[in-house]
């Protein structure tokens, strides 16, 4: 069995998350993936914003930086550029990374900076009590959408691809072995990597969808029944894919990485060009 204790600040447990929250599942997946990299804990910097998901770094035994709402990628960019030897990982909720942090998200993708972002995508603002986020399903009730959400959603995968991320995967908190694999590959990838993890918050979101879910188990079943692996999706029509979401490694490519590029610039200047 995997020994989590090496990576945990055990004294900081129990964590703050509700029973049935998807965050804990992704947390363990991340720890296993981190362990598999074999990286020195002293050289890992785990950065987050604000939200339930963003409390995660406090539980991990490495360099941890809990920033301000939406700003994790901005801080992380400073860490990585100033100290390229660090392995920089950002964990962030959907509100944190896509609403208030949306600008930093698109520019981290564009720069292709060697950072891994794991989006804890529960489709709601958990910490503040269930207001709708950029990924709340259309029509779902939320604390600020009492009559149902009338806003369209971001597709994190398409957004990341469109902005230039060079590794983009989507997993769920139900399909855990696959999630381990996506996160591990994202960590090993050189360049900006995004793992969109579809998960659930029953406490503030599920509870309000009276006809959809009776409990958080129903939300897990929803993930099981609506996730379509990429290979299967390719054989399905748009009609058949309606209401489903596609999991797998959507995008993996090589492009000049920002920090290396900057270092190359420094080296060329030292070469006496200037």
């Amino acid at each position: 069995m995997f020994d989590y204790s090496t990576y945990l600040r055990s004294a900081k447990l129990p964590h703050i998350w509700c029973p049935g929250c998807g965050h804990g599942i992704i947390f363990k997946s991340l720890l296993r993936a981190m362990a598999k990299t074999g990286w020195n804990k002293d050289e890992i910097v785990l950065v987050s914003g604000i939200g339930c998901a963003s409390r995660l770094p406090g539980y991990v035994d490495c360099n941890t930086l809990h920033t301000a709402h939406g700003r994790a990628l901005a801080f992380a960019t400073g860490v990585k550029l100033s100290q390229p030897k660090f392995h920089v990982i950002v964990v962030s909720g959907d509100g944190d990374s896509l609403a208030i942090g949306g600008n930093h998200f698109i520019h981290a993708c564009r720069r292709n900076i060697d950072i891994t972002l794991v989006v804890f995508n529960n489709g709601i603002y958990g910490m503040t009590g269930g207001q709708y986020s950029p990924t709340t399903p259309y029509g779902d009730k939320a604390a600020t959408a009492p009559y149902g959400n009338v806003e369209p959603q971001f597709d994190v995968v398409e957004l990341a691809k469109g902005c230039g991320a060079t590794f983009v995967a989507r997993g769920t908190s139900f399909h855990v072995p696959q999630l381990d694999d996506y996160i591990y590959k994202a960590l090993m990838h050189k360049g900006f990597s995004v793992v969109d993890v579809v998960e659930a918050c029953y406490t503030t979101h599920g509870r309000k969808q009276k006809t959809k879910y009776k409990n958080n188990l129903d939300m897990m079943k929803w993930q099981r029944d609506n996730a379509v692996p990429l290979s299967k999706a390719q054989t399905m029509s748009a009609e058949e894919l309606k209401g489903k979401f596609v999991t797998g490694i959507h995008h993996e490519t090589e492009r000049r990485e920002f920090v290396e590029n900057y270092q190359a610039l420094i080296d060329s200047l030292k070469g006496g060009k200037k």
Partner: protein
Amino acid sequence: MKEGKYTFVQGNIACAEGALYAGCSFFGGYPITPSTEIAEFMSEKLPLRGGKFIQMEDEIASIGSIIGAALSGAKSMTSTSGPGFSLMQELIGYACIAEVPCVIVNVMRGGPSTGLPTSPAQSDLLQAKWGTHGDHPTIALVPNSVEEMFTETVRAFNLAEYFRTPVIILGDEIIGHMREKFRLPEPGELEVIDRKLPDVDGLCRLPYRADGKHPACLPNFGASRFHVTGLNHDESGFPTMDPSIVQESNSRIIDKIYHQRELIDKVETKYCEDAEMLFLAVGSAARAAEEVVEEYRRKGIKAGLFRPVTLWPFPKKQFIPYAEKAKKIIVPEMNLGQLRTVVERFARSEKVIPVNLVNGEPLDPEFIMSTIEKCSK
């Protein structure tokens, strides 16, 4: 005049030179008039010495990036003007509570909003003090010459590193863009302070341990494994809501700068000893005020100038004795009375003559004198 090579440079460039002299190795910024020359200069010079420059996507990202770099061990800086300074406020508070050394240069321009992008103002004197939410420490320096743009930037880094707190430099469009004679000091000529690092043997378990009046002493990332947060935290760096710890730590980050005021305070006084007309002014307004003081002295009027170079914390100990003796206190400033609100805490308002200009023009001696005349009638 000291020996050496003199050049003719702009205030903004002197500021950037000061940053390099102090050992700044990371700059994150976003272009905005009238501060942009600082970013441009850093983008050219930093990579030549192995440092890093990044143009971030906005000013919030800029200050976020410099905090990240500072925690990783770099001396770091950003520069901006009014609108960008407003955007930075939340994270200035972050740097205060998490005790992250960094330098923020605000070359002030007219406001509010986009205001007068290319014109001078002293619009953010109070924002520098009160802009971010919550009680917090503020150190802000106001240079009034090209040379001071250099020396005060070096001092800003020193104070940031020593006190582990963000330090704000308030330039303005005049000081930033004007050119004056300038000599780059030799290495070693000015003191350069580096942050104190703890002896960490293995894990640093209490990075925020500090005696009641001192800055915390954190390792840099990589030297230990610890936690940094903008939540109220205890000595271990982890969040706490324990009322006594929160009371203590919220007080400590402020007490740490008041406790060692002598390291922060800096005022320049001219003829204050017997001054009946005491001028209080900072930055470019102080240059105009100085001319008025000289003119009045020539006429036999006992005028004096009190110029805080460190504006925040306000040098009240130095100011009060002069303010008490003076018959009139004249406060020329390029805003509608920001410094005046401070003065009126120490002097009766009948004694105070405000001189305010917010039309984008430099405050000149004639305007100051005519305003005083009008008020005296």
